[in-house]
């Protein structure tokens, strides 16, 4: 892979190693392409399409995070079509989920002059908070379906396979097997899903309680019964008799 690829991004000639993605090539040239679902340590699936760019000779916009550069490619990262798509995707996102704890996405909304209230009668996704374990809460009203949590729970990191999806299309939600409480699932509470969540949909339980105004002492007493239950369970499984 020592071969070098020459391409043009926004009138600028760029040389990058073969196998680079458009995103990497743009970064090297100092050109910013926004991303939402992309994470350096997760498999890129090209879900959010916010990184779409116009590549001359192709019909649709190309997701920069996964498309590899080819010699002679001519790329426009801020054409009219690109801007329209980005602005609209952000507007649709704002009308679907609670972005209050997604500062990066909020900055993009500013940058692309997206109208937060573009779709006044949109049905937002507003499931209630799932508080079923002592370690973290799941507030899927904030979930943007970037898939990172599902991926790190599976082959991208932990091989635990505690979560996958329920529903499909707009109704898709991250879910355990038959929506069982997390402690009944294969979850090992490694916390990797919480670590990669970009929107605060997954949050350490104590942080969540602190944000709601509970004092550390109150939190200790609130979670005591859960800790005791867990301890009892562990004792029983260690010594079934």
């Amino acid at each position, binding site marked *: 892979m020592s071969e070098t690829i020459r391409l043009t991004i926004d009138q600028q000639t760029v040389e990058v190693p073969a196998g680079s993605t458009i995103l990497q090539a743009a970064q090297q040239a100092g050109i910013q392409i926004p991303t*939402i679902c992309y994470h350096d340590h997760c498999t890129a*699936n*090209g*879900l*959010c*399409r*916010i990184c*779409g760019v116009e590549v001359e000779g192709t019909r*649709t*916009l190309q*997701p920069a995070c*996964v498309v590899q550069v080819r010699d002679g490619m001519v790329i426009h990262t801020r054409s009219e*079509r690109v801007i*329209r*798509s980005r*602005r*609209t*995707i952000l*507007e*649709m*996102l704002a*009308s*679907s989920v609670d972005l209050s704890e997604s500062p990066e996405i909020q900055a993009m909304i500013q940058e692309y002059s997206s109208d937060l209230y*573009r*779709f006044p*009668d*949109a*049905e937002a996704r507003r499931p209630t908070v799932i508080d079923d374990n002592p370690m973290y809460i799941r507030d899927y009203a904030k979930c943007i*379906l970037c898939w990172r949590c599902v991926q790190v729970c*599976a082959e991208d990191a932990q091989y635990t*396979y*505690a*979560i*996958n*999806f*329920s*529903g*499909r*299309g*707009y*109704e*898709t939600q991250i*879910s*355990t*097997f*038959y*929506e069982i409480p997390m402690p009944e*699932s*294969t979850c090992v509470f490694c916390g990797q899903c919480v670590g990669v969540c970009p929107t605060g949909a997954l949050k350490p339980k104590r942080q969540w309680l602190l944000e709601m105004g509970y004092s550390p002492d109150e939190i200790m007493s609130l979670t005591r019964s859960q800790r005791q239950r867990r301890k009892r369970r562990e004792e029983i499984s260690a010594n079934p008799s």
Partner: protein
Amino acid sequence: MSDLDLSPLLHRLESYHSRGRTSLLPALHDAQQIYGYIPRVAAEAVGQALNVPLAEIYGVIEFYSLFYSQPVGKTVIHVCNDPACALAGSETLFKQIRFQQEAAPTGNSSSSLTIEMAPCLGLCEHAPAVLVQGQPVARADRQTWQDLVSGRGERPSSLLGGTVSILTANCGLGHTVELSEYLDLGGYQALRKALQTPPRQIIEEIKAAGLVGRGGAAFPTGLKWEAAANAPGSVKYVVCNADEAEPGTFKDRVLMEDDPHSILEGIIIAGYAIGAQKGYVYIRGEYLLPYQAMKKAVEDAREAGFLGNNILDTDFNFDIEIRRGAGAYICGEETALFESIEGKRGFPRLKPPFPTTHGLFGKPTVINNVETLANVPVIIRKGAAHYRKLGTEKSPGSKLFCLSGDVVRPGLYEVPFGIPFHHLLYDLAGGVRPGHHLQAALFGGAAGAFATPDHLNVRLTFEDLKEAGLPLGSGVITVFDETRDLRDICLRLARFFAEESCGKCYPCQMGTQRQFEILERIARGEVQQEDWERLQDVGWTMTDSSLCGLGQTAASAILSAMKHFPHLFQPI
């Protein structure tokens, strides 16, 4: 739940053990057949047998609309809710069935009914259509309640028309052409001939015939075969895409029900040409009768030596497996279909890589539509030159068109490429229903575009339609007379996409929902000034930015309606 008897399921799972995850959909179908739905313990047993993580099993159950994770009625009735059936009164029919159910005394058999609105069932020429426990009922509005619920309703018979019968030569006989009859009609002669020809020459013949895919994308079949034949690797697959779910399409259903062996013959020849050892036929879950016909045909063909080892005493080994979908339009997208055969949610994959190098199970794969493969024996039997006598230079051969809606004689029409639209509509299909005239025709189904009376002279070829801005798609033409509210039709198409979007990429996941919500309001007569631009932005964002063909065409019919009938989308 713990007293559920798992033994019948465990017995069936034994045969799947060795194959693992690819058997997931068949195993879930089995579980549902035994228990009426998929109880949690049954899903756990399936997971254990196939070594699939439980959360992923639930993800799969939840993805497919025909799988139920909660108990449902003993009898499940699906009422089609898409344009052709809606024109024939499916909405009223649905309400009547619901009313009958509620009025029935409790304890009666109707109390264990589940009645659902369904996406297009592929029975458009028999509208309004319903499925009762998977069994199709034609003209459901004419059936008595008792007949309908007990499954004694009128069975659809093939309605055929057109000016040639090449692909449909053995169709419309009132029964499925069985192996012996197929052989009497000259069946498997093409396979005999093919097996005495070098594989490369078969591919050259298909290329020379100019055959292009009939599923909607119109990709040259010979080039696809050549790419798969040239791809490195010894394990290769042929997949027959029988996930026919584009609203308005029913051609593949008729071919599979009436003449399954012609499709098998095409698949076997394809397998020989590219060097594959195995073929799959993936049939949409709603098509129970075609599934049974194809399954029987495979068994008969195997017994007669057209499948298996040393086919017709050559050293060519090839077998075919029939798979059922479970209610997901997206699985008609080729890579989503692979995922489904592999036992996963039907999420389309990123392309490249393309199926010819990385297809089913990551191996080089040729995936062709049913009608495309039915063309193969025709080409091999009589040669490319003969095949090209019909049609035009760029669109050789014949084409199946599915006509439905406000047309006098709805049905499946086989015509040579190149006849004008008006000839098909007025001379062959009897024109628009009496006393009415053409307002619009939807070409290519939900993912298609509207034609207007100005398009009546357009010749039905790939090249002419493209120039006219119309897709040939899979050959769907749904006709609307001047009394129809196209806003209601657009709303149905939008609802279809909102329900069928897989949810993988953002533009389609949210765009189909936003498009549906806006059109719902417009259909209520509450059009806002800003709706035009909203629909344009959502539509073009899906078209430009979606990951797969579904999302990229989820707005195409609506954008075309906006172009031809702008006043419908503007405030009065």
